[in-house]
Protein backbone atom coordinates (compact mmCIF):
# COMPACT_ATOMS: atom_id res chain seq x y z
CA UNK A 1 0.00 0.00 0.00
CA UNK A 2 1.08 3.57 -0.66
CA UNK A 3 2.70 5.58 2.08
CA UNK A 4 0.80 8.68 3.23
CA UNK A 5 2.09 11.98 1.95
CA UNK A 6 4.28 10.54 -0.77
CA UNK A 7 4.03 11.54 -4.39
CA UNK A 8 2.96 7.95 -5.08
CA UNK A 9 -0.16 8.58 -3.01
CA UNK A 10 -1.41 11.33 -5.32
CA UNK A 11 -0.82 9.02 -8.28
CA UNK A 12 -2.61 6.19 -6.51
CA UNK A 13 -5.54 8.40 -5.66
CA UNK A 14 -5.88 9.47 -9.27
CA UNK A 15 -5.70 5.85 -10.41
CA UNK A 16 -8.17 4.72 -7.72
CA UNK A 17 -10.82 7.22 -8.67
CA UNK A 18 -10.41 6.98 -12.44
CA UNK A 19 -10.69 3.19 -12.41
CA UNK A 20 -13.75 3.41 -10.18
CA UNK A 21 -15.44 6.23 -12.12
CA UNK A 22 -17.05 4.19 -14.93
CA UNK A 23 -18.62 1.77 -12.42
CA UNK A 24 -19.85 4.61 -10.24
CA UNK A 25 -21.31 6.39 -13.25
CA UNK A 26 -23.20 3.33 -14.51
CA UNK A 27 -24.53 2.39 -11.07
CA UNK A 28 -25.68 5.94 -10.46
CA UNK A 29 -27.41 5.91 -13.83
CA UNK A 30 -29.02 2.49 -13.44
CA UNK A 31 -29.74 2.24 -9.70
CA UNK A 32 -29.31 5.62 -7.99
CA UNK A 33 -31.23 7.93 -10.31
CA UNK A 34 -34.01 5.36 -10.97
CA UNK A 35 -34.62 4.90 -7.24
CA UNK A 36 -35.07 8.67 -6.84
CA UNK A 37 -37.25 8.81 -9.93
CA UNK A 38 -39.59 6.18 -8.45
CA UNK A 39 -40.15 8.45 -5.44
CA UNK A 40 -41.11 11.32 -7.77
CA UNK A 41 -43.36 9.09 -9.90
CA UNK A 42 -45.12 7.74 -6.81
CA UNK A 43 -46.31 11.25 -5.90
CA UNK A 44 -47.85 11.82 -9.32
CA UNK A 45 -51.00 10.66 -11.05
CA UNK A 46 -49.31 9.38 -14.17
CA UNK A 47 -50.25 6.80 -16.76
CA UNK A 48 -47.76 4.36 -18.23
CA UNK A 49 -45.93 5.80 -21.21
CA UNK A 50 -46.07 9.40 -19.93
CA UNK A 51 -43.01 10.64 -18.12
CA UNK A 52 -44.85 12.83 -15.59
CA UNK A 53 -48.30 13.84 -14.39
CA UNK A 54 -50.05 16.09 -11.83
CA UNK A 55 -48.68 16.05 -8.26
CA UNK A 56 -50.98 14.16 -5.88
CA UNK A 57 -48.86 13.94 -2.74
CA UNK A 58 -49.30 10.71 -0.83
CA UNK A 59 -52.56 9.75 -2.55
CA UNK A 60 -51.05 6.74 -4.30
CA UNK A 61 -49.73 5.35 -1.02
CA UNK A 62 -53.06 5.96 0.73
CA UNK A 63 -54.81 4.25 -2.15
CA UNK A 64 -52.49 1.26 -1.83
CA UNK A 65 -52.94 0.59 1.88
CA UNK A 66 -56.73 0.78 1.51
CA UNK A 67 -56.85 -1.34 -1.63
CA UNK A 68 -57.91 -4.97 -0.93
CA UNK A 69 -55.74 -6.11 -3.83
CA UNK A 70 -52.65 -4.70 -2.12
CA UNK A 71 -53.47 -6.50 1.14
CA UNK A 72 -54.07 -9.73 -0.78
CA UNK A 73 -50.70 -9.29 -2.50
CA UNK A 74 -49.02 -8.59 0.84
CA UNK A 75 -50.46 -11.77 2.33
CA UNK A 76 -49.58 -13.80 -0.79
CA UNK A 77 -46.03 -12.47 -0.64
CA UNK A 78 -45.76 -13.56 2.98
CA UNK A 79 -47.01 -17.08 2.19
CA UNK A 80 -44.74 -17.32 -0.87
CA UNK A 81 -41.62 -16.17 0.98
CA UNK A 82 -42.24 -18.08 4.20
CA UNK A 83 -43.23 -21.32 2.47
CA UNK A 84 -40.38 -21.20 -0.02
CA UNK A 85 -37.59 -20.23 2.36
CA UNK A 86 -38.49 -22.67 5.14
CA UNK A 87 -38.68 -25.63 2.76
CA UNK A 88 -35.56 -24.55 0.85
CA UNK A 89 -33.50 -24.27 4.02
CA UNK A 90 -34.64 -27.59 5.49
CA UNK A 91 -34.11 -29.38 2.19
CA UNK A 92 -30.81 -27.54 1.71
CA UNK A 93 -29.56 -28.61 5.13
CA UNK A 94 -30.61 -32.23 4.66
CA UNK A 95 -29.01 -32.59 1.25
CA UNK A 96 -25.87 -30.71 2.29
CA UNK A 97 -25.43 -33.16 5.20
CA UNK A 98 -25.92 -36.01 2.76
CA UNK A 99 -23.44 -34.65 0.21
CA UNK A 100 -20.94 -34.02 2.99
CA UNK A 101 -20.59 -37.80 3.41
CA UNK A 102 -18.04 -39.42 1.18
CA UNK A 103 -19.53 -41.98 -1.19
CA UNK A 104 -19.14 -43.12 -4.76
CA UNK A 105 -20.59 -40.86 -7.47
CA UNK A 106 -20.89 -37.96 -5.03
CA UNK A 107 -19.71 -35.54 -7.71
CA UNK A 108 -22.42 -36.73 -10.09
CA UNK A 109 -25.10 -36.47 -7.39
CA UNK A 110 -23.94 -32.93 -6.61
CA UNK A 111 -24.13 -31.97 -10.29
CA UNK A 112 -27.72 -33.25 -10.61
CA UNK A 113 -28.78 -31.48 -7.42
CA UNK A 114 -27.18 -28.21 -8.58
CA UNK A 115 -28.75 -28.37 -12.06
CA UNK A 116 -32.15 -26.73 -11.33
CA UNK A 117 -30.37 -23.63 -10.02
CA UNK A 118 -28.32 -23.27 -13.20
CA UNK A 119 -31.05 -23.65 -15.81
CA UNK A 120 -32.95 -20.57 -17.01
CA UNK A 121 -36.20 -19.86 -15.20
CA UNK A 122 -38.18 -20.04 -18.43
CA UNK A 123 -36.91 -23.61 -18.95
CA UNK A 124 -37.98 -24.62 -15.45
CA UNK A 125 -41.39 -23.08 -16.03
CA UNK A 126 -41.88 -24.74 -19.43
CA UNK A 127 -40.94 -28.16 -18.12
CA UNK A 128 -43.10 -27.92 -15.04
CA UNK A 129 -46.09 -26.53 -16.89
CA UNK A 130 -45.93 -29.54 -19.18
CA UNK A 131 -45.60 -31.90 -16.20
CA UNK A 132 -48.44 -30.15 -14.36
CA UNK A 133 -50.86 -30.22 -17.30
CA UNK A 134 -54.29 -31.36 -16.05
CA UNK A 135 -54.68 -34.24 -18.48
CA UNK A 136 -51.39 -35.14 -20.17
CA UNK A 137 -49.18 -34.01 -17.27
CA UNK A 138 -46.99 -36.77 -15.88
CA UNK A 139 -47.44 -35.65 -12.25
CA UNK A 140 -51.19 -36.34 -12.21
CA UNK A 141 -50.61 -39.62 -14.05
CA UNK A 142 -48.06 -40.82 -11.46
CA UNK A 143 -50.11 -39.70 -8.46
CA UNK A 144 -53.25 -41.35 -9.87
CA UNK A 145 -51.31 -44.54 -10.51
CA UNK A 146 -50.05 -44.60 -6.94
CA UNK A 147 -53.60 -43.88 -5.69
CA UNK A 148 -52.36 -40.81 -3.83
CA UNK A 149 -55.06 -38.75 -5.54
CA UNK A 150 -58.42 -39.98 -6.83
CA UNK A 151 -58.95 -37.43 -9.60
CA UNK A 152 -56.56 -35.21 -11.61
CA UNK A 153 -55.55 -32.05 -9.73
CA UNK A 154 -55.77 -28.61 -11.34
CA UNK A 155 -52.31 -27.62 -10.13
CA UNK A 156 -52.26 -24.13 -11.60
CA UNK A 157 -55.93 -23.47 -12.27
CA UNK A 158 -57.38 -23.94 -8.83
CA UNK A 159 -57.08 -20.89 -6.54
CA UNK A 160 -56.52 -23.03 -3.45
CA UNK A 161 -53.73 -25.08 -5.01
CA UNK A 162 -51.90 -22.57 -7.22
CA UNK A 163 -49.74 -21.00 -4.50
CA UNK A 164 -48.67 -24.42 -3.27
CA UNK A 165 -47.72 -25.40 -6.82
CA UNK A 166 -45.73 -22.22 -7.44
CA UNK A 167 -43.88 -22.69 -4.14
CA UNK A 168 -43.10 -26.30 -5.07
CA UNK A 169 -41.60 -25.27 -8.41
CA UNK A 170 -39.77 -22.33 -6.81
CA UNK A 171 -38.26 -24.59 -4.16
CA UNK A 172 -37.13 -27.08 -6.81
CA UNK A 173 -35.48 -24.25 -8.78
CA UNK A 174 -33.78 -22.37 -5.94
CA UNK A 175 -33.01 -24.75 -3.06
CA UNK A 176 -29.60 -25.78 -4.53
CA UNK A 177 -28.31 -22.37 -3.46
CA UNK A 178 -28.86 -23.40 0.16
CA UNK A 179 -27.23 -26.80 -0.48
CA UNK A 180 -24.05 -25.23 -1.89
CA UNK A 181 -23.83 -22.55 0.80
CA UNK A 182 -24.31 -25.02 3.67
CA UNK A 183 -22.09 -27.67 2.09
CA UNK A 184 -19.29 -25.11 1.86
CA UNK A 185 -19.35 -24.40 5.58
CA UNK A 186 -19.84 -28.09 6.52
CA UNK A 187 -16.63 -28.96 4.71
CA UNK A 188 -14.68 -26.41 6.72
CA UNK A 189 -15.57 -27.90 10.14
CA UNK A 190 -12.35 -29.21 11.76
CA UNK A 191 -12.66 -33.02 11.99
CA UNK A 192 -10.80 -33.14 15.34
CA UNK A 193 -13.92 -31.76 17.02
CA UNK A 194 -15.88 -34.83 15.97
CA UNK A 195 -13.10 -37.20 17.02
CA UNK A 196 -12.96 -35.64 20.47
CA UNK A 197 -16.75 -35.87 20.79
CA UNK A 198 -16.68 -39.52 19.73
CA UNK A 199 -14.09 -40.36 22.37
CA UNK A 200 -16.42 -38.72 24.90
CA UNK A 201 -19.13 -41.08 23.65
CA UNK A 202 -21.38 -38.52 21.94
CA UNK A 203 -23.93 -40.03 19.56
CA UNK A 204 -24.10 -38.75 16.01
CA UNK A 205 -27.33 -36.96 16.94
CA UNK A 206 -25.54 -35.19 19.81
CA UNK A 207 -22.59 -34.41 17.55
CA UNK A 208 -24.96 -32.75 15.10
CA UNK A 209 -26.57 -30.49 17.71
CA UNK A 210 -23.41 -29.72 19.69
CA UNK A 211 -20.80 -29.33 16.93
CA UNK A 212 -22.34 -29.13 13.47
CA UNK A 213 -25.30 -26.82 14.12
CA UNK A 214 -23.46 -24.16 16.20
CA UNK A 215 -20.64 -24.11 13.64
CA UNK A 216 -22.84 -23.66 10.57
CA UNK A 217 -25.48 -21.43 12.20
CA UNK A 218 -24.08 -18.03 11.07
CA UNK A 219 -23.84 -19.17 7.45
CA UNK A 220 -27.21 -20.89 7.69
CA UNK A 221 -28.88 -17.67 8.90
CA UNK A 222 -27.12 -15.52 6.33
CA UNK A 223 -28.18 -17.89 3.55
CA UNK A 224 -31.72 -17.86 4.86
CA UNK A 225 -31.77 -14.08 4.86
CA UNK A 226 -30.39 -13.87 1.33
CA UNK A 227 -32.98 -16.34 0.12
CA UNK A 228 -35.68 -14.32 1.92
CA UNK A 229 -34.59 -11.12 0.16
CA UNK A 230 -34.39 -12.74 -3.27
CA UNK A 231 -37.62 -14.69 -2.89
CA UNK A 232 -39.37 -11.55 -1.68
CA UNK A 233 -38.79 -9.62 -4.90
CA UNK A 234 -38.93 -12.57 -7.29
CA UNK A 235 -41.08 -11.79 -10.30
CA UNK A 236 -40.44 -14.02 -13.28
CA UNK A 237 -41.12 -17.51 -11.96
CA UNK A 238 -44.52 -16.59 -10.50
CA UNK A 239 -45.58 -14.47 -13.45
CA UNK A 240 -44.57 -17.17 -15.94
CA UNK A 241 -46.26 -19.97 -13.98
CA UNK A 242 -49.61 -18.28 -13.32
CA UNK A 243 -49.56 -14.59 -14.34
CA UNK A 244 -50.67 -13.91 -10.76
CA UNK A 245 -53.89 -15.93 -11.08
CA UNK A 246 -56.16 -17.73 -10.78
CA UNK A 247 -58.31 -15.05 -9.10
CA UNK A 248 -55.18 -13.24 -7.82
CA UNK A 249 -54.26 -16.31 -5.75
CA UNK A 250 -50.55 -15.95 -6.65
CA UNK A 251 -50.35 -12.16 -7.08
CA UNK A 252 -47.40 -11.18 -4.92
CA UNK A 253 -46.22 -7.56 -4.52
CA UNK A 254 -43.76 -7.60 -7.46
CA UNK A 255 -46.43 -9.15 -9.70
CA UNK A 256 -48.88 -6.46 -8.54
CA UNK A 257 -46.36 -3.73 -9.46
CA UNK A 258 -46.10 -5.17 -12.94
CA UNK A 259 -49.85 -5.61 -13.40
CA UNK A 260 -50.58 -2.07 -12.15
CA UNK A 261 -47.98 -0.53 -14.44
CA UNK A 262 -48.35 -2.57 -17.60
CA UNK A 263 -51.88 -4.00 -17.47
CA UNK A 264 -53.79 -1.16 -15.77
CA UNK A 265 -51.35 1.55 -16.98
CA UNK A 266 -51.49 3.22 -13.55
CA UNK A 267 -47.83 4.11 -13.34
CA UNK A 268 -48.00 6.32 -10.24
CA UNK A 269 -49.81 3.70 -8.23
CA UNK A 270 -47.43 1.00 -9.44
CA UNK A 271 -44.52 3.16 -8.23
CA UNK A 272 -46.17 3.52 -4.81
CA UNK A 273 -46.61 -0.25 -4.52
CA UNK A 274 -42.98 -0.73 -5.62
CA UNK A 275 -41.80 1.65 -2.91
CA UNK A 276 -43.90 0.00 -0.21
CA UNK A 277 -42.36 -3.31 -1.33
CA UNK A 278 -38.94 -1.72 -1.12
CA UNK A 279 -39.67 -0.40 2.39
CA UNK A 280 -40.28 -3.94 3.65
CA UNK A 281 -37.20 -5.11 1.80
CA UNK A 282 -35.12 -2.32 3.36
CA UNK A 283 -35.77 -3.77 6.81
CA UNK A 284 -34.50 -7.16 5.64
CA UNK A 285 -31.48 -5.50 4.02
CA UNK A 286 -30.66 -3.64 7.24
CA UNK A 287 -30.66 -6.92 9.18
CA UNK A 288 -28.47 -8.44 6.47
CA UNK A 289 -25.89 -5.66 6.79
CA UNK A 290 -25.80 -5.94 10.58
CA UNK A 291 -25.21 -9.71 10.31
CA UNK A 292 -22.50 -9.23 7.65
CA UNK A 293 -20.68 -6.69 9.82
CA UNK A 294 -20.84 -9.06 12.80
CA UNK A 295 -19.50 -11.93 10.71
CA UNK A 296 -16.68 -9.74 9.39
CA UNK A 297 -15.81 -8.57 12.91
CA UNK A 298 -15.58 -12.17 14.08
CA UNK A 299 -13.01 -13.09 11.42
Amino acid at each position, binding site marked *: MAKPGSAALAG*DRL*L*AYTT*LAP*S*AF*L*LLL*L*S*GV*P*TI*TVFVTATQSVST*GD*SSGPFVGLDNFLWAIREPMFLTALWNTFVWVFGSVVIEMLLGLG*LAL*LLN*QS*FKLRGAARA*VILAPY*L*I*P*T*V*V*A*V*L*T*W*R*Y*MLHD*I*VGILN*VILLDLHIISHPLLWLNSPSLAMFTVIMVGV*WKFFPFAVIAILGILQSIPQEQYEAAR*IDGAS*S*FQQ*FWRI*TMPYILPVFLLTMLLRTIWTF*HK*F*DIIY*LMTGGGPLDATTTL*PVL*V*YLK*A*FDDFEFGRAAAVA*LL*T*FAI*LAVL*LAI*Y*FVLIRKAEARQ
Partner: protein
Amino acid sequence: MTVAVEGVGTPPRNREIADIHFIGSRILIYLSTLLAVSIIGFPLLWMLICSFKPSDELYAVPPDFLPRQWTLQNYSDLFLQTNFPTYFANSLIVAGGATLLSLAVGGLGAYSLSRFRFFGMAAFADAVLVSYMLPEVLIVLPLYIYVVKLGLADTLIALIISNTAFTLPLTLWFMRAYFNAIPASLEESAMVEGCTRLKAMMRVTVPLALPGIVSVGVFTFNQAWNEYLFALIFISSERNKTLPLGLANWIGRDTIYSWGMLLAGAVMVTIPVIVFYLLVQRRLIVGLAEGGAKGD
Protein backbone atom coordinates in the same frame (compact mmCIF):
# COMPACT_ATOMS: atom_id res chain seq x y z
CA MET B 1 -24.94 -38.95 9.87
CA THR B 2 -21.26 -38.77 10.84
CA VAL B 3 -20.65 -42.34 11.90
CA ALA B 4 -18.34 -43.38 9.09
CA VAL B 5 -15.34 -44.25 11.30
CA GLU B 6 -17.16 -45.39 14.41
CA GLY B 7 -15.47 -48.80 14.27
CA VAL B 8 -12.11 -47.27 15.19
CA GLY B 9 -11.21 -47.75 18.84
CA THR B 10 -14.29 -49.78 19.80
CA PRO B 11 -13.74 -52.93 21.89
CA PRO B 12 -13.79 -56.22 19.88
CA ARG B 13 -17.17 -57.45 21.16
CA ASN B 14 -18.82 -54.27 19.90
CA ARG B 15 -17.06 -54.59 16.60
CA GLU B 16 -19.82 -56.53 14.87
CA ILE B 17 -22.52 -54.16 16.04
CA ALA B 18 -20.44 -51.25 14.76
CA ASP B 19 -20.01 -52.97 11.39
CA ILE B 20 -23.74 -53.52 11.05
CA HIS B 21 -24.31 -49.94 12.03
CA PHE B 22 -21.75 -48.83 9.44
CA ILE B 23 -23.27 -50.89 6.62
CA GLY B 24 -26.73 -49.71 7.63
CA SER B 25 -25.74 -46.09 7.44
CA ARG B 26 -24.04 -46.65 4.06
CA ILE B 27 -27.23 -48.16 2.66
CA LEU B 28 -29.23 -45.27 4.09
CA ILE B 29 -26.89 -42.75 2.45
CA TYR B 30 -27.12 -44.41 -0.95
CA LEU B 31 -30.89 -44.83 -0.79
CA SER B 32 -31.59 -41.26 0.26
CA THR B 33 -29.17 -39.91 -2.35
CA LEU B 34 -30.82 -42.02 -5.02
CA LEU B 35 -34.25 -40.79 -3.96
CA ALA B 36 -33.16 -37.13 -3.90
CA VAL B 37 -31.36 -37.32 -7.23
CA SER B 38 -34.30 -39.05 -8.94
CA ILE B 39 -36.87 -36.53 -7.74
CA ILE B 40 -34.69 -33.48 -8.42
CA GLY B 41 -33.36 -34.71 -11.74
CA PHE B 42 -36.63 -36.09 -13.10
CA PRO B 43 -38.10 -32.86 -14.57
CA LEU B 44 -34.97 -32.21 -16.64
CA LEU B 45 -34.76 -35.83 -17.78
CA TRP B 46 -38.43 -35.73 -18.70
CA MET B 47 -37.90 -32.51 -20.67
CA LEU B 48 -35.05 -34.10 -22.60
CA ILE B 49 -36.88 -37.37 -23.32
CA CYS B 50 -40.14 -35.72 -24.34
CA SER B 51 -38.37 -33.36 -26.72
CA PHE B 52 -37.69 -36.46 -28.88
CA LYS B 53 -41.32 -37.67 -28.89
CA PRO B 54 -43.61 -37.20 -31.88
CA SER B 55 -46.58 -34.98 -31.06
CA ASP B 56 -49.20 -37.73 -30.75
CA GLU B 57 -47.08 -39.38 -28.04
CA LEU B 58 -46.75 -36.08 -26.19
CA TYR B 59 -50.50 -35.95 -25.75
CA ALA B 60 -50.94 -39.68 -25.02
CA VAL B 61 -52.75 -40.67 -21.81
CA PRO B 62 -51.14 -42.43 -20.05
CA PRO B 63 -47.76 -41.44 -21.52
CA ASP B 64 -44.94 -43.91 -22.16
CA PHE B 65 -41.70 -43.15 -20.37
CA LEU B 66 -39.49 -43.54 -23.44
CA PRO B 67 -40.61 -42.49 -26.91
CA ARG B 68 -41.89 -45.43 -28.96
CA GLN B 69 -40.47 -43.60 -31.91
CA TRP B 70 -37.53 -41.23 -31.41
CA THR B 71 -37.73 -38.17 -33.64
CA LEU B 72 -35.85 -34.94 -34.29
CA GLN B 73 -38.99 -33.42 -35.78
CA ASN B 74 -39.47 -31.02 -32.84
CA TYR B 75 -35.96 -29.66 -33.29
CA SER B 76 -36.22 -29.21 -37.03
CA ASP B 77 -39.64 -27.54 -36.63
CA LEU B 78 -38.13 -25.25 -34.03
CA PHE B 79 -35.38 -24.06 -36.33
CA LEU B 80 -37.31 -24.03 -39.61
CA GLN B 81 -40.79 -22.89 -38.64
CA THR B 82 -40.24 -20.44 -35.79
CA ASN B 83 -38.14 -17.39 -35.00
CA PHE B 84 -36.09 -19.44 -32.56
CA PRO B 85 -32.76 -18.75 -34.36
CA THR B 86 -33.48 -15.00 -34.15
CA TYR B 87 -34.24 -15.22 -30.42
CA PHE B 88 -31.08 -17.24 -29.92
CA ALA B 89 -28.92 -14.69 -31.73
CA ASN B 90 -30.53 -11.80 -29.81
CA SER B 91 -29.91 -13.53 -26.49
CA LEU B 92 -26.27 -14.09 -27.45
CA ILE B 93 -25.88 -10.40 -28.31
CA VAL B 94 -27.59 -9.18 -25.13
CA ALA B 95 -25.89 -11.58 -22.72
CA GLY B 96 -22.51 -11.18 -24.48
CA GLY B 97 -22.79 -7.40 -24.55
CA ALA B 98 -23.82 -7.12 -20.90
CA THR B 99 -20.98 -9.47 -19.91
CA LEU B 100 -18.30 -7.57 -21.82
CA LEU B 101 -19.53 -4.23 -20.49
CA SER B 102 -19.68 -5.50 -16.91
CA LEU B 103 -16.26 -7.16 -17.06
CA ALA B 104 -14.54 -4.12 -18.59
CA VAL B 105 -16.13 -1.54 -16.31
CA GLY B 106 -16.56 -3.71 -13.23
CA GLY B 107 -13.12 -5.33 -13.48
CA LEU B 108 -11.41 -1.93 -13.26
CA GLY B 109 -13.72 -0.78 -10.47
CA ALA B 110 -13.20 -3.98 -8.49
CA TYR B 111 -9.43 -3.59 -8.77
CA SER B 112 -9.74 -0.10 -7.34
CA LEU B 113 -12.02 -1.27 -4.51
CA SER B 114 -9.60 -4.06 -3.66
CA ARG B 115 -6.33 -2.13 -3.72
CA PHE B 116 -7.13 1.35 -2.45
CA ARG B 117 -8.75 2.85 0.63
CA PHE B 118 -9.67 6.41 -0.21
CA PHE B 119 -12.56 8.59 0.84
CA GLY B 120 -15.98 7.22 -0.08
CA MET B 121 -14.85 3.84 -1.33
CA ALA B 122 -16.16 1.78 1.58
CA ALA B 123 -19.53 3.50 1.22
CA PHE B 124 -19.45 2.77 -2.50
CA ALA B 125 -18.84 -0.93 -1.80
CA ASP B 126 -21.98 -0.96 0.37
CA ALA B 127 -23.94 0.84 -2.35
CA VAL B 128 -22.89 -1.85 -4.80
CA LEU B 129 -24.36 -4.55 -2.57
CA VAL B 130 -27.59 -2.61 -2.08
CA SER B 131 -28.00 -2.02 -5.80
CA TYR B 132 -27.58 -5.74 -6.42
CA MET B 133 -30.45 -6.38 -4.01
CA LEU B 134 -32.83 -3.78 -5.45
CA PRO B 135 -36.06 -5.33 -6.73
CA GLU B 136 -36.10 -5.59 -10.50
CA VAL B 137 -39.70 -4.34 -10.61
CA LEU B 138 -38.63 -1.14 -8.81
CA ILE B 139 -35.84 -0.34 -11.28
CA VAL B 140 -37.81 -1.26 -14.35
CA LEU B 141 -40.43 1.49 -13.90
CA PRO B 142 -38.05 4.48 -14.21
CA LEU B 143 -35.89 2.64 -16.76
CA TYR B 144 -39.00 2.25 -18.89
CA ILE B 145 -39.51 6.05 -18.82
CA TYR B 146 -35.87 6.68 -19.84
CA VAL B 147 -35.92 4.02 -22.54
CA VAL B 148 -39.05 5.49 -24.11
CA LYS B 149 -37.71 9.06 -23.81
CA LEU B 150 -34.39 8.20 -25.39
CA GLY B 151 -36.08 6.38 -28.25
CA LEU B 152 -34.45 3.10 -27.20
CA ALA B 153 -37.71 1.17 -26.84
CA ASP B 154 -37.58 -2.16 -28.65
CA THR B 155 -33.79 -2.16 -29.06
CA LEU B 156 -31.17 -4.64 -27.90
CA ILE B 157 -28.99 -1.73 -26.68
CA ALA B 158 -31.64 -0.90 -24.07
CA LEU B 159 -31.54 -4.51 -22.88
CA ILE B 160 -27.74 -4.66 -22.71
CA ILE B 161 -27.50 -1.48 -20.65
CA SER B 162 -30.39 -2.27 -18.32
CA ASN B 163 -29.05 -5.78 -17.68
CA THR B 164 -25.87 -4.08 -16.46
CA ALA B 165 -27.89 -2.70 -13.51
CA PHE B 166 -27.58 -6.15 -11.96
CA THR B 167 -24.61 -7.75 -13.69
CA LEU B 168 -22.27 -4.86 -12.82
CA PRO B 169 -22.80 -5.09 -9.02
CA LEU B 170 -22.32 -8.85 -9.31
CA THR B 171 -19.03 -8.35 -11.19
CA LEU B 172 -17.77 -5.67 -8.80
CA TRP B 173 -18.53 -7.76 -5.74
CA PHE B 174 -17.00 -11.02 -6.95
CA MET B 175 -14.00 -9.51 -8.73
CA ARG B 176 -13.11 -7.54 -5.62
CA ALA B 177 -12.96 -10.81 -3.67
CA TYR B 178 -10.75 -12.37 -6.39
CA PHE B 179 -8.39 -9.37 -6.41
CA ASN B 180 -8.28 -9.40 -2.60
CA ALA B 181 -6.99 -12.97 -2.77
CA ILE B 182 -4.02 -11.92 -4.94
CA PRO B 183 -1.28 -10.47 -2.71
CA ALA B 184 -0.53 -6.81 -3.43
CA SER B 185 3.15 -7.61 -2.73
CA LEU B 186 3.40 -9.27 -6.17
CA GLU B 187 2.52 -5.96 -7.82
CA GLU B 188 4.79 -4.04 -5.50
CA SER B 189 7.79 -6.16 -6.39
CA ALA B 190 6.98 -5.61 -10.09
CA MET B 191 6.89 -1.90 -9.37
CA VAL B 192 10.26 -2.08 -7.62
CA GLU B 193 11.56 -3.62 -10.83
CA GLY B 194 10.40 -0.54 -12.71
CA CYS B 195 6.82 -1.20 -13.76
CA THR B 196 4.21 1.52 -13.34
CA ARG B 197 1.20 0.61 -11.22
CA LEU B 198 -0.94 0.22 -14.34
CA LYS B 199 1.63 -2.05 -15.99
CA ALA B 200 1.99 -4.09 -12.81
CA MET B 201 -1.76 -4.51 -12.73
CA MET B 202 -2.00 -5.61 -16.36
CA ARG B 203 1.03 -7.93 -16.28
CA VAL B 204 0.82 -9.42 -12.80
CA THR B 205 -2.64 -9.16 -11.30
CA VAL B 206 -4.91 -9.61 -14.32
CA PRO B 207 -3.29 -12.88 -15.49
CA LEU B 208 -3.52 -14.26 -11.95
CA ALA B 209 -7.16 -13.21 -11.71
CA LEU B 210 -8.02 -14.78 -15.07
CA PRO B 211 -9.83 -17.85 -13.68
CA GLY B 212 -11.87 -15.48 -11.53
CA ILE B 213 -12.61 -13.23 -14.48
CA VAL B 214 -13.79 -16.21 -16.52
CA SER B 215 -16.10 -17.52 -13.80
CA VAL B 216 -17.57 -14.10 -13.05
CA GLY B 217 -18.10 -13.75 -16.79
CA VAL B 218 -20.07 -16.98 -16.80
CA PHE B 219 -22.23 -15.90 -13.87
CA THR B 220 -22.88 -12.58 -15.57
CA PHE B 221 -23.65 -14.20 -18.89
CA ASN B 222 -26.03 -16.63 -17.23
CA GLN B 223 -27.87 -13.87 -15.43
CA ALA B 224 -28.38 -11.85 -18.62
CA TRP B 225 -29.20 -15.01 -20.60
CA ASN B 226 -31.99 -15.69 -18.07
CA GLU B 227 -33.34 -12.17 -17.84
CA TYR B 228 -37.06 -11.92 -18.58
CA LEU B 229 -38.66 -8.78 -17.06
CA PHE B 230 -36.62 -6.16 -18.93
CA ALA B 231 -37.19 -8.00 -22.19
CA LEU B 232 -40.92 -8.32 -21.47
CA ILE B 233 -41.25 -4.57 -20.96
CA PHE B 234 -38.75 -3.08 -23.43
CA ILE B 235 -39.14 -5.40 -26.41
CA SER B 236 -42.21 -5.47 -28.60
CA SER B 237 -41.18 -6.68 -32.06
CA GLU B 238 -40.63 -10.27 -33.00
CA ARG B 239 -37.17 -9.62 -34.45
CA ASN B 240 -35.79 -8.22 -31.17
CA LYS B 241 -37.11 -10.88 -28.79
CA THR B 242 -34.71 -12.79 -26.58
CA LEU B 243 -35.07 -16.49 -25.77
CA PRO B 244 -36.89 -16.22 -22.42
CA LEU B 245 -39.36 -13.73 -23.89
CA GLY B 246 -39.86 -15.66 -27.13
CA LEU B 247 -40.36 -19.03 -25.43
CA ALA B 248 -42.60 -17.59 -22.70
CA ASN B 249 -44.91 -16.15 -25.33
CA TRP B 250 -45.45 -19.64 -26.73
CA ILE B 251 -46.58 -21.15 -23.43
CA GLY B 252 -50.31 -21.11 -23.06
CA ARG B 253 -50.73 -21.11 -26.81
CA ASP B 254 -50.33 -24.87 -26.87
CA THR B 255 -53.00 -25.16 -29.54
CA ILE B 256 -50.73 -23.37 -31.99
CA TYR B 257 -47.27 -24.45 -30.85
CA SER B 258 -46.89 -28.04 -29.77
CA TRP B 259 -45.32 -28.91 -26.47
CA GLY B 260 -42.70 -30.82 -28.42
CA MET B 261 -41.33 -27.67 -29.96
CA LEU B 262 -41.43 -25.87 -26.62
CA LEU B 263 -39.52 -28.67 -24.90
CA ALA B 264 -36.99 -28.78 -27.75
CA GLY B 265 -36.59 -25.02 -27.27
CA ALA B 266 -36.09 -25.49 -23.53
CA VAL B 267 -33.35 -28.06 -24.20
CA MET B 268 -31.63 -25.70 -26.65
CA VAL B 269 -31.69 -22.82 -24.14
CA THR B 270 -30.20 -25.03 -21.46
CA ILE B 271 -27.28 -26.33 -23.53
CA PRO B 272 -25.14 -23.13 -23.49
CA VAL B 273 -25.63 -22.86 -19.72
CA ILE B 274 -24.45 -26.42 -19.14
CA VAL B 275 -21.49 -26.03 -21.51
CA PHE B 276 -20.39 -22.83 -19.79
CA TYR B 277 -20.54 -24.36 -16.34
CA LEU B 278 -18.56 -27.38 -17.41
CA LEU B 279 -15.98 -24.96 -18.81
CA VAL B 280 -15.78 -22.92 -15.63
CA GLN B 281 -15.77 -25.90 -13.32
CA ARG B 282 -12.49 -27.03 -14.87
CA ARG B 283 -11.05 -23.49 -14.92
CA LEU B 284 -12.03 -23.00 -11.31
CA ILE B 285 -10.36 -26.19 -10.16
CA VAL B 286 -7.22 -25.38 -12.16
CA GLY B 287 -7.20 -21.86 -10.73
CA LEU B 288 -7.61 -23.10 -7.18
CA ALA B 289 -4.92 -25.74 -7.62
CA GLU B 290 -2.50 -23.16 -9.02
CA GLY B 291 -3.21 -20.79 -6.16
CA GLY B 292 -2.61 -23.60 -3.68
CA ALA B 293 0.67 -24.66 -5.29
CA LYS B 294 2.05 -21.14 -5.27
CA GLY B 295 1.06 -20.58 -1.67
CA ASP B 296 0.20 -17.26 -0.10
